[in-house]
């Protein structure tokens, strides 16, 4: 199977701001970014201690429900082993859970917010409802990032 089935969403983002509310944590930075293709807006907590990010960095971000290239669903339990995975193509990979979907705006201009937690590192993805419809509440997701 191709990776396109596994990846539920992918786009190229540009970092706009670091720590929009001021620096609060040493190792974690909240980045504010917007996507180039789908007009998405994103807040993402990144462990900048291991993966530094700066303003105007351009990166591709993908959300996948499993890392297995054959598409077998993720078990929720971590398995060791050096198999080939989707992660090989990316530099920074996080695992977490989608826990909230919200609506914003009114009438025609509705925007949908998805909030995902990667063990406390949060991602807020705001955009057109059509991109969100395929996601389910309580879904386990992988966030994959590679700088361009």
């Amino acid at each position: 199977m191709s990776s396109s089935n596994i990846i539920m969403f992918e786009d190229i983002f540009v970092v706009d701001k670091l720590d929009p509310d001021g620096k609060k944590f040493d190792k974690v930075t909240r980045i504010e970014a917007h996507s180039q293709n789908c007009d998405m807006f994103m807040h993402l907590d990144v462990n900048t201690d291991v993966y530094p990010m700066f303003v105007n960095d351009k990166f591709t971000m993908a959300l996948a429900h499993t890392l297995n290239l054959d598409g077998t669903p993720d078990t929720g339990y971590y398995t060791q082993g050096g198999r080939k995975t989707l992660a090989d193509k990316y530099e920074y990979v996080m695992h977490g859970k989608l826990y909230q979907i919200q609506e914003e705006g009114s009438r025609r201009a509705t925007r949908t917010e998805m909030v995902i937690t990667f063990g406390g590192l949060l991602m807020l993805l705001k955009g057109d409802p059509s991109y969100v419809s395929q996601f389910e509440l309580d879904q386990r997701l992988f966030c994959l990032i590679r700088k361009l």
Partner: protein
Amino acid sequence: MQQRAQDIIYTKQPYIEDVGPRRIKSIQFSTMSGSDILKASECQVHLGQYYDANKKAIVGGLLDTRMGAPNKHGTCQTCGGSFTDCPGHFGYLNLVLPVYNVGYLSTILDILKCICKSCSRVLIDEKLRKSYLKRMRNPRTEPLKKNELMKEIVKKCSTMASSKAVKCLRCGYMNGMVKKAGSVVGIIHDRSKLSDGYLEECKSAIGHTREARAPIGLATYILNPVKVLSLFQRMVEVDCELLYLQGRPEKLIITTIAVPPISIRPSVFTEGSQSNENDITERLKQIIQFNAKLRLELLEGRRTGIKYLIGWDELQAVVTLYINSDVRIPLDMQVGRPLSGFVQRLTGKQGRFRQNLAGKRVEFTGRTVISPDPNLKITEVAIPIHMARILTYPERVTHHNIEKLRQCVNNGSYKYPGARMVTYPDGSSKMLTGNYRKRIAEELKSGCIVHRHLEDGDVVLFNRQPSLHRMSIMCHRARIMPWRTLRFNESVCNPYNADFDGDEMNMHVPQTEEARTEAFLLMGVQNNLCTPKNGEILVASTQDFLTSSFLITRKDTFYDRAAFSLMCSYMNDGMDLVDLPTPSVLKPIELWTGKQLFSVLLRPHANVRVYINLIVKEKNYSKPNKEHKKERETMCPNDGYVYFRNSELISGQLGKATLGNGNKDGLYSILLRDYNAYAAATCMNRLAKLSARWIGNHGFSIGIDDVQPGKKLVDEKGKTISNGYRHCNKLIADYNGGRLALKPGCDATQTLETEITERLNKLREEAGDVCMKELHWRNSPLIMSQCGSKGSPINISQMIACVGQQSVGGSRAPDGFIDRSLPHFPRKSKTPAAKGFVANSFYSGLSATEFFFHTMGGREGLVDTAVKTADTGYMARRLSKGLEDLCVQYDNTVQDAGGGIVQFLYGDDGLDPAIMEGKAGVPLNFDRLFMKVKATCGAEEDEYLSPSDISNIVQSLLLKHNGTLDGICSESFRKSLSSFLGDQAKRLECLMKLVDGVEVENFDNIKNVEGRTGISKNTEKIAQKVSGITEKQLEVFLKTCLDRYVWKRIEPGTAIGAIGAQSIGEPGTQMTLKTFHFAGVASMNITQGVPRIKEIINGAKRISTPIITVELEHNSNVNAARIIKGRIQKTVLGQVAKSIKIVMTSRSASVKVTLDMKTIREAQLSLDANIVRELILETPKIKRKLQRINVLEDGKLEVFPGGDRNKLHFELHSLKNMLPAVVVKGIKTVERVVIAQKKLDDAENDHGGPKYNMFVEG
């Protein structure tokens, strides 16, 4: 026939008919008369000596062995019993002359008031006497009523005699007033008001005798005990009944003293042959001596005349002291050191009743210093081996435990897992101290009881004084440990209110299986996690546990595989199965976050079926502000929004709100409500262990560098303080120049004080804010204050920036010297520094004056705590005594011990306050429950319901449960439940409308119509995902709601009176004594805290700060408010008069009052001279002095004084002084009315100007 004849046995015994067991109809208590005492005694005591030359007790002396065995070696001469067997026997001591018994003096007085002092009949007339007697004889009257009736008769008789002498209707004797003699124990018959010739007759008669030199109070007649005794002896039985006397009244007077047995007044032998006699014995010796002296005086009495009376008084005094040594006796009669009397033996805290009979001394207890041990479970207590070797539990031998107990018996009482005693089924027992233990161990059989040492898992009760609520004594499981302290998990500090600064605690070991079970089920820690006061959790994580949780769950704590696994094994000593979660960061390296550790802590592996769902806003949650109008929720930049979803920590840094006590939707509360106490307890145990180990490795300490201010902070602080000082100086200058704008209802000084205090408080706050902003996040005090484990921002800023204003009695430091607080300052100085503002921090150090002000404030705190313990303790006791008997009956009513119904349904809803989940005592928190149901019961394949379907299904489900609902659920609960569900449905409806802008369609419709665009379908789906609900979820939600409600009803038999008393008494002790609260405006302080509660409990008629808030009907008009103010506030003539002067002309003299009509008009008081005239005439004090008042013109009055023309000048001046105080308007008691501008809400602000209400004082 023959047989029956044989049954009859002829004896000399009186024939007693066998009527079966007898019923005791009544018991009557009475005092012993002299003859009763003689009958009950074994010997006469007449010698005031103890031992003879051979150190033997003298026969007829106070320690005569006929009155009981004197010590362990002697025997009783009467019954031959030993010291342990013989209870002792009474002796008797005849008094030469009778004396009063102080305890009965008031009764004697009452009787004497009622009877004629000549013929001993009751003074009231025959008709009245009959009617009273009839009421007294009524069998249905309760004793309490009869006592009241007796008081009434006494009152009637004494009022008769008080004004004038009463002539006895039967003998014609004139009776005066009877009263207590002042200094000595005695009674005086005051006949001075007699108007017959008796007095003169008496005087002349005495004049003829030889002792006429001493006319001792002829009119006041001392009623001596002999006289009273004879009067009492002559009293008729009927009169005794009328006065509700149980026995003969003469018994109230002592003629013979019963000498108590030796066993109640033992003599103590000090080393050598010296003996120390009991106080009672010594007093009796004095009595015997005075008695003998009086007898001698009587024998020679004929010559010395009245001299014997002194001896009699002495005897009276010493007998009085024998009974009650507190009675005041003339100084010259007091001899030697104070000896305690019988009253002192019985009453008071140290008395026989409270100390011994109702005393709470028990066996199988231990007490020692306590210390913490986070490795113990919260239900455990570590008991030192030393204690375990002494405390035992009687365990019955069965074939299950025989081997263990055999080992115990073998070990004996000194080696730890041992036993002290074995009891056999036949009742005999053997101590296990000798070396015959081995044999006993071998012969041990089932059925024996082995009193073995305490072992792990035994049930013990653990207690700390003061036991203010039921959680002060709880049941723990024992853990036998080395060393010498009692130890327990710090999480349990709260209910005991214990710390480890040297506190001691007590421990009790229940001795039967039943007691253990009962203790464990009713008092077990796991069953008392909540306070019944309001259902808040009391046993929860504290101090270090909070700090480490806070640090672990920080957003930037990451652990690699080794560290994370190690921490997982900290939680349960590596004994638990743990499912390692997928790391949060997989690449570039595997990293787990601290939040994941908490998810593991809550649910270590998949088989633990605990799904926690909760939302808590911690202290540092960033509330919506100007920049972000929306609630940020989980995206809070400070990470203050704690969100657990299915036992996974989604976001938020844990602190006191989540893990600490005193919260209803904290983590442990929810574990307790949604699961059980065990789940909450294991979670606390895990956290305690993890935290203790983690913080030990991580290190957490505080040092001087934590409180060193940075350069920026020092600069900013200097700037703020100089700014503030400048502002204050300006205020003071304004005040001195009289330019200060007054605050409503305040004079200039008050205004200045409030403004300066306000400014200085703001100053401290500003300095504190700067300081908090500048601190690094690793600063230990900052961490502690943020997570809530210890300290507040104020404490930190006091250490680093500025200590702030010191207050004494709610105001700035008072003047200790003339016009100044300390001689370091100029007189009348009101500058911040001179009135106790401490600008330094604890780090920079206080100046000498600042230090002194600080000690002033500190002392007030100390005095406060010292005073309040006594005050609140007494309050708690009164509450408990008043409510102790209230409990819930099986019919759900609340009744007292007498069966009186206090409430028809406890709390009007019949629910147990201990298990209320919502805030403000609401049984359930629907929002949370709904969230939990939605999270745990996933939608998956089920279809979402449309809003109309929701309401339909709710209706049908409610109908289905209606049968069970009726009579169980209160109306209000049902209403709130359905309204909540209605709201949910409405919200979904709104959202759906919002999403696609079309009317909501039926779910079927959406499914069927394939033609609809994909996007619209998508949006529908998203809306569903946002707040849809399936039928199953709805059903589960309703079912849990109803099920839980049913379990929340109060159990019949609950002692809710005691719970109620404790719920008020215990928080009372935590309150500071003198809390004055600023009631909004202008120094209108209201009493709060303990003094206010005292007022309420006492039912004080005059409360110290009565204030009424008046809501105005037309609340937007200040002028209207001012008019009303004028009508309510007390206004006196002095305030509205221009002048009040004395006018004297040749013909007349008067006081002229000129009203200030301008002021009156301005204040809209609607007063004129005519009204004032009427008002003056209505004032009672002035009215008496007046002749007339003339109204001259509309603003002038002339007041003419009346009365004696000689005193005219004085009259005029007194009038002039009194007139200004005449109340001309308003309510007399209302000293002050203040118009206040209402605090405006945003909604109100839009229309109309400011709103006003008033505060009325008085």
